[in-house]
């Protein structure tokens, strides 16, 4: 499963929304995720992909696509290291 699909699974499970409404250009607000949902999504992504996502970085995400790109980039960096 692609990283994007895995992240969609995480988001849909925590926010309890259908996976298909999560779009790259959509925001957490669009799917009614509250701040606690967001923290839990970040935590789950950190555990699943064994990376760290500090708040400073998460605050920069404009949409779901930015989040996916960030995770992909950090996994790639980790694999290189």
């Amino acid at each position, binding site marked *: 499963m692609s990283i994007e699909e895995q992240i969609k699974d995480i988001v849909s499970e925590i926010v309890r929304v259908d996976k298909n409404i999560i779009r790259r250009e959509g925001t957490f607000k669009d799917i009614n995720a509250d701040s*606690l949902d967001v923290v839990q999504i970040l*935590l789950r992504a950190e555990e699943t992909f064994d990376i760290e996502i*500090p*708040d*400073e970085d998460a605050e920069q995400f404009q949409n779901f696509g930015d989040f996916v790109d960030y995770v992909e980039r950090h996994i790639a960096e980790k694999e290189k290291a």
Partner: protein
Amino acid sequence: MNQPLIGKLSLVTGGGRGIGRAIALKLASQGSDVIVNFFRHRDTAEKTAKELQDMGVKAKIIRANVGEPAKIDEMFDVISNDFGYLDILISNAASGVGRPVLDVDVKAWDWTMDINARALLLCAQRAARLMEGRNGKIVSISSLGSFLVWPTYAAVGVSKAALEALTRYLAIELAPKGICVNAIAASAVLTDALKFYIKGQEAAHQQATPAGRMVTPEDIANVVAFLCSEDAFMIRGQTIIIDGGASVMAPFVSTTGGVNQ
């Protein structure tokens, strides 16, 4: 300078910023080595650790979400391996979901209780073993919200009430091990976050405080240092209120003594 804590090791949860940072700096100024636990702000924790090292003490940062038992265990495993002892535990980290009581769902409740109350239980259990024979001190940071009602503060307020009750139980049950356990409850403290929220209302806050100004992180740190000193040996299981007198004022009375119209 008087440095009674030389050779001691302190763990401050959420010690990277805000009140936790002020506590870490104060303990270091008294000579203590300090472990700074953090969760989501590594940069800030690193900066604080650097400040501590510049004061001439050992400092180490450990990332752990204190809401997760496994992470607490991992943190204490590191402390056990690297040091093998601990003298002071400051349970300061807190989080919470600000909602009216009717909107506090199970997820929000558990999140708040796990980080604010259960963390003290689990940290104290591990810390007690590392404090064996060392006259350990445990201080938790609570808030007036444990007994006063603030808007949207229900989940956090209840978690702080649990924290204070647990402080009493720990104080009694750890007394035979020579460990002193107390808590501090503060009113609104002038941290960077709070400065943002109360912008423009500073005067009103000041006016509601008989002591004439708001509580600062340093005010809290000073009392923590006292509770960690041998002078406080006979204080056990207490929650010390730091609020410049605000909570003992009768309602509808101004600080100058007149009755508000």
